């Protein structure tokens, strides 16, 4: 079954940790380096994320994610290193092409921040079943309807894509041209859009009926088949993250106060 979820069950500790702990980790990884204002803290979080992903045996799944953003990051490094306003100190010359320290330094800051964001999010999305995450939220008062919409997207979008492919094949078998220049492709889009929209509407109505007859809009307190995803250490992990964030805020306030004194 195709799903757009990147989650993979590997039976690791990270798979068993509460999603809230991982979300707090993301918050910490993004907020603390900003508050402390040090690139080394970001680097520390990058290393921590890599170690966590290695322990969860999902590091290979980060390669395509980093590959896509890597191209953008290299472009940033090149442009800033070569052309950033205020570039004065050359660090590398390749004939007429000169890289400057200031530009490279600025670009490295961006690269580290982006890698930190990507890897910390990978810790969550590669090791957390979306349904577990939403179920935990619903248990804490999140709307089950929004929860359903969020979870079902992961399976229903691939199904809709398959429907689209089937309709495309059907129209192609009736002589519709789908390959060629832009005009041909735009022309092909018109006979596709009507059956796709109609079938989507019909499917949505039928699914809404099917949900309704299974008590989807019930106001009764929901129960759950699966136990809440958490381990005993979760409260300590969450406490640790909150303490670290609060400490970083205090550090920042002290820094600001000292600056004005």
């Amino acid at each position, binding site marked *: 079954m195709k799903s757009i979820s990147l989650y993979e069950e590997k039976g690791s500790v990270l798979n068993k940790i509460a999603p809230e702990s991982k979300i707090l980790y993301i918050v910490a990884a993004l907020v603390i380096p900003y508050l402390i204002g040090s690139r080394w803290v970001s680097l520390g979080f990058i290393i921590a994320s890599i170690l966590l992903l290695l322990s969860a045996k999902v590091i290979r799944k980060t390669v395509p994610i980093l590959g896509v953003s890597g191209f953008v990051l290299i472009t940033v490094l090149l442009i800033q290193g070569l052309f950033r306003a205020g570039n004065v100190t050359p660090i590398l010359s390749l004939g007429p092409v000169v890289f400057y320290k200031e530009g490279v330094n600025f670009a490295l800051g961006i690269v580290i921040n982006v890698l930190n964001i990507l890897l910390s999010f990978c810790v969550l999305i590669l090791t957390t079943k979306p349904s577990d995450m939403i179920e935990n939220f619903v248990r804490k008062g999140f709307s089950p309807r929004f929860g359903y919409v969020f979870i*079902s997207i992961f399976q229903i979008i691939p199904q809709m894509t398959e429907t689209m492919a089937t309709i495309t094949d059907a129209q192609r078998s009736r002589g519709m041209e789908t390959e060629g220049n832009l005009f041909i492709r735009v022309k092909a889009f018109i006979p596709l859009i009507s059956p796709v929209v109609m079938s989507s509407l019909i499917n949505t109505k039928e699914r809404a009926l099917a949900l309704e*007859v299974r*008590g*989807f809009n019930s106001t009764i307190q929901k129960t759950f088949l*699966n136990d809440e995803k958490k381990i005993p250490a979760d409260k300590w992990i969450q406490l640790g993250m909150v303490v670290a964030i609060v400490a970083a805020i205090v550090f920042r306030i002290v820094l600001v106060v000292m600056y004005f004194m």
Partner: protein
Amino acid sequence: MARIEIEHLKYQYPATTKLALDDISFSVEPGEFIGIIGKNESGKSTLCQAIAGLVPNFYKGSYGGKVMVGEIEVKTVEVNEMCKTVGIVFQNPFNQVTGSKLTVYEEISFGLENMGIPKVEMIKRIDEAMELLDIIKYKDRNPFDLSGGQMQRMAIASIIAMQPEVIILDEPTSQLDPQGREEVFQAVQKLSKKGITIIMVEHNMEKIAQYSDRVVLLNDTKLVAIDTPQKIFSRDDLDSFGVEAPVFTKICRGLHLKNEETGCYPVTLEEASRLFQRLVKEESHNE
């Protein structure tokens, strides 16, 4: 078990000018198997949805008359409340998959979670439903990976687990291959044997004749008749309602072979063969 009482039911969908159901009245006894037949647009699906409360509570529209299931007047109860008493299975098995669960086992739990059933009870009901529908071997499969027949049985199991007193099946086999169709009919037969009231819309007249205690014949939004399959399929005007009799009935009609006790043509293979055997015996006695 609940008795179903339909009195002068009229219904018109919103933004339409024609009645979808016109003065329908009949009742269904607890544990009965009712087949609903009629040509397209005769009101079969609308009637099913009226018993389940989707008409008018989901579709809105103009509604008259009364549908009672046990002590409940269907119109006055929300669908999410009504589903505890009346379960409904639709044509397209694919569109009945919620899309929010990753395994068949979890998929069946969806309705029970919404009903607030405690976990221990939930597991008991899911296991029972899966066993009854013979889908226990698929419990860890993704619902979208099942075949049409398996998916439809899962949809039925999802409804069964909610333990309704009445189950409505609206053309549950129309989109299935012959094997899938047979799987669903076997499952329905098991439910019927358990004493659950079943209302089934189906175009396969052989199956309707085989399983139904009584058959509702609809034509152009009106109730034509409700009677035993033998009486319904022996009607001389059946063709005028766009309904074909089972093949055994057609053969016997062609041979003018009626069951003398009932005055009707046989509707199943068993009935027809019994009649033939009796005739052969009588013939050999005469010789």
